[in-house]
């Protein structure tokens, strides 16, 4: 049995029954990493010694006959935009290459509390800006299903590490699809929770009103278990919702009878790959067979989601990223002379082209004389997009679409054309604007590449998303198919 192929809950069962030890698990995963990382390049940094030390404490607990929590002793990793005390946190940017946070993100503390074992930090598009992880300043992470293709982004390292069995699960972040689109590209489960459900404290901000941390897992059960660990109110995050969190595993019900699923036709527009379209239609048929009531619907403002997103996200980013100036941490251009040159040179040398493009877009959108026409207009359209969802949810329990219009594309295929790259998030972006939860689950293959089924739910109704996902998963085999990486 290859331990690394198992889900977190399966591994937890092995620990509970003493069929495996925590150190054994960590060693197995590092052996797997040693085997595939050269090809996948999912990690920015490893925390091997720390992981072994933590694991031996879990083994001590097992030796004392104590019971473990559901994620205790389970190897995992964080996208490199979540602050880890004492461990470099770079956002895959030259400007933060030397940054070692003196504090940990709330989610990092929550998982430490749960006893999960961090193996390292995962590559991403610089500052989470991108859809292919090609914008990393450090490495190109490859799609484990086809090493010539991108893993998606911006949580490319996180999904690739889960897909390649380098970790049992990972945490990613999603501003416009950065969990779900790569999850679709690499055939894993990725949930973007409701805005405010998971604390953003310690998540290095890209666009504050859109960013949300979520789980990347091998199945839906693990997704619920990770949500149990990370969801809930955090007094350190003023935008965190003051809601009680449920036990998400209670939603793992294999039944969708009578559930109303809306299919917004705008999500199946031009640009959708015919094979992806076919796979999604098959998934819809499957859900109907399982008893769901499916009906087409319209979300008229969908076409404005991309331009709205590309005003709001860059505007917030232009301000959030202003702090990287070389004054007290991060990259400082050598021999800059005066203070203004230091600012300019440090930022010019420290940021990559996509980050600069968005800072410029955002700065422009917020400039006096343009604010009303761009930023303010975008906020108003954002409200209209939210209303589309509110209206749809009066009629439906969830909405369904492809996660991305195409399967994973090749390196360089879209990197020369930012607009083409942006369009790979066309189905995921409206969800962030509306602040609602959405999940991507494996639902088939197009040309041998994974396709993701995108389910969108009402705010704080992750339960229904998990239930539909779980039912689909229990009645299909797609999530069990592994990339051929390890057996080449």
């Amino acid at each position, binding site marked *: 049995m290859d331990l690394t192929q198992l889900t977190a809950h399966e591994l937890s069962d092995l620990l509970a029954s003493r069929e495996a030890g925590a150190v054994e698990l960590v060693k197995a995963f590092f052996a797997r990493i040693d085997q595939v990382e050269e090809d996948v390049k999912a990690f920015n940094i490893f925390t091997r010694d720390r992981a072994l030390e933590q694991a031996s404490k879990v083994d001590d607990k097992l030796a004392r006959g104590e019971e473990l929590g559901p994620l205790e002793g389970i190897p995992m990793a964080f996208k490199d935009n979540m602050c880890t005390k004492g461990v470099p946190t770079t956002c895959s940017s030259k400007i933060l290459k030397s940054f070692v946070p003196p504090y940990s993100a709330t989610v990092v503390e929550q998982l430490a509390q749960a006893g999960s074992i961090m193996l390292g930090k995962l590559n991403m598009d610089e500052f989470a800006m991108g859809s292919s992880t090609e914008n990393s300043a450090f490495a190109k992470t490859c799609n484990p299903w086809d090493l010539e293709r991108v893993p998606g982004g911006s949580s490319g390292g996180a999904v690739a590490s889960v897909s390649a069995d380098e970790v049992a699960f990972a945490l990613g972040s999603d501003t416009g699809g950065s969990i779900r689109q790569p999850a679709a590209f690499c055939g894993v489960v990725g949930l973007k929770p409701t805005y405010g459900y998971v604390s953003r404290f310690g998540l290095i901000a890209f666009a504050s009103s859109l960013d949300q941390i979520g789980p990347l897992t091998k199945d839906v059960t693990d997704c619920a278990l990770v949500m149990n660990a990370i969801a809930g109110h955090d007094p350190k995050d003023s935008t965190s919702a003051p809601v009680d969190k449920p036990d998400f595993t209670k939603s793992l019900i294999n039944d969708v009878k009578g559930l109303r699923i809306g299919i917004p036709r705008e999500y199946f527009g031009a640009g959708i790959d015919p094979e992806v379209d076919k796979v999604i239609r098959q998934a819809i048929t499957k859900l109907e067979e399982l008893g769901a009531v499916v009906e087409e619907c319209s979300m008229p403002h969908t076409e404005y989601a991309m331009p709205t997103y590309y005003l709001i996200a860059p505007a917030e980013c*232009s301000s959030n990223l202003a702090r990287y100036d070389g004054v007290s941490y991060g990259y400082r251009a050598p021999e800059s002379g005066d*203070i203004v040159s230091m600012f300019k040179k440090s930022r010019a040398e420290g940021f990559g082209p996509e980050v600069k493009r968005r800072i410029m877009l955002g700065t422009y959108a917020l400039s006096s004389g343009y604010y009303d026409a761009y930023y303010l207009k975008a906020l108003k359209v954002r409200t209209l997009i939210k209303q589309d969802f509110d209206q749809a949810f009066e009629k439906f329990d969830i909405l369904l679409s492809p996660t991305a219009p195409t399967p994973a594309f090749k390196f360089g295929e879209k990197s020369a054309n930012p607009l083409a790259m942006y369009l790979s998030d066309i189905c995921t972006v409206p969800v962030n604007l509306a602040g609602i939860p959405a999940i991507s689950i494996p639902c088939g293959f197009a040309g041998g590449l994974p396709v993701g089924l995108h389910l969108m739910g009402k705010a704080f109704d992750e339960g229904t998303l998990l239930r539909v996902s779980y039912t689909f998963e229990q009645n299909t085999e797609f999530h069990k198919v592994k990339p051929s990486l390890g057996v080449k």
Partner: protein
Amino acid sequence: MLEDFEIVAGVEVHAELATKTKIFCGCTTEFGGEQNTHVCPVCLGLPGVLPVLNRQVVEYAIKTGLALNSEIAEFSKFDRKNYYYPDLPKNFQTSQYDLPICLGGHVEIEVDGVKKRIGITRVHMEEDAGKLVHSGATISTSDVSFVDYNRTGVPLLEIVSEPDLRSVDETVAYLEKLVQTLDYIEVSDCRMEQGSVRFDINVSLRPKGSDKLGIRTETKNLNSFGSVRRCMEYEIERQAEVLSEGGQVIQETRTWDEGRGITLSLRSKEEAHDYRYFPEPDLVPMVIEREWVERVRERLPELPDSRRERLLELGLSAYDAGVITSSKALAEFFDAALDKFKDPKTLANWVMGDFLGLLKAKGIPVQSSPVKPEGLAELLNLVENGTISGKIGKSVIGEMFESGKGAAEIVKEKGLVQISDTGALSGIIDKVVNSNPQSVTDFKAGKERAIGFLVGQVMKETKGQANPGLVNKLLKEKLETM
């Protein structure tokens, strides 16, 4: 030249709030401290941190708004003011833009006996920046500059006036009144020397009789009433000169050079920052419940105007009432002493005379005076009931400041009790009269002044302990029998 113009001025006041912790984190706001010790990841603006609003800041803003007769917004929010400066760790300041917490309001001032209402435009909350320490004179002429982030994130209120001020005197009176009010409601320490209150002065001139506004300049970061006065006088003179010569005032931001006593151009309108304000996405908008506002209103302390009014009713002069109510601490001292000593006028004389004089000489604030209100009242009661003379009283209060002992204790220890014993005094009077025959002759010749000299001699003999009224009476009786 100046007579041809009317002055139009408005002021922005930045006051540090006296909360224990900073506006968005739990760090102390205490002044001083080793550099970069009152800091945490949040106020350092490290990657990934988020602000959490200190509720006390909002309460102080509400309190200020109520004291300034403002309307307290039901819905308010924070915005980001974006600009690059090395003392600003996030390179944006979290402030308030279009929905400030307080709107409108006014302050009443009095200049040369004329009362005037000065309008308040708005009051908003924001965070302070850090402090730069340069190896040279300025950031551009220094080899190295250091940043101390201890002040970063200390809560500030910005109070913006209407352009209602028409003279330097009005401006200073307005600022004094504003600072006095902040002091009374205890939202700010108002320690000007520590820079906890700063003023930005907007001034323009227009031909007398015109109702059009002239082009204004803004001079930033003044930190005393004296500087405001000197700066405004200079700036008015400068603008008048430009205008009289047919020139145009340039709309710009200027800075005050205290040493040279002049204002200097900092940046023109064209170079003005575009702050690119937008709503702070890391904080949720505030809905300010009316019950909260009412609770704050109920606990609002007595304000300077009503306190002054009360002292005038007690019979104090306008000047005395003004001095005593100039700071809350002094007014409270006065009230507390008045509780134990019932003559307000005498009390006012002592407070404004010896008491303030001694405090000033020692350089200590009223709050930490070694002589407490009860102590002063005790002393004044001793004078009033004739135990000691007023003159002895003056030396006793000095001794009280030095030793911290009570008045009665000092009087007893030093045997300062006034001699009111007719028998004891008669002997001394006889002696004085006998050894000063000339004065006796003068008195008999109608020179009333001579008796003063004789009283003085008796006081001298008794080391000031004789009851002067009694001495006078006994002397007169003695002389009339001669």
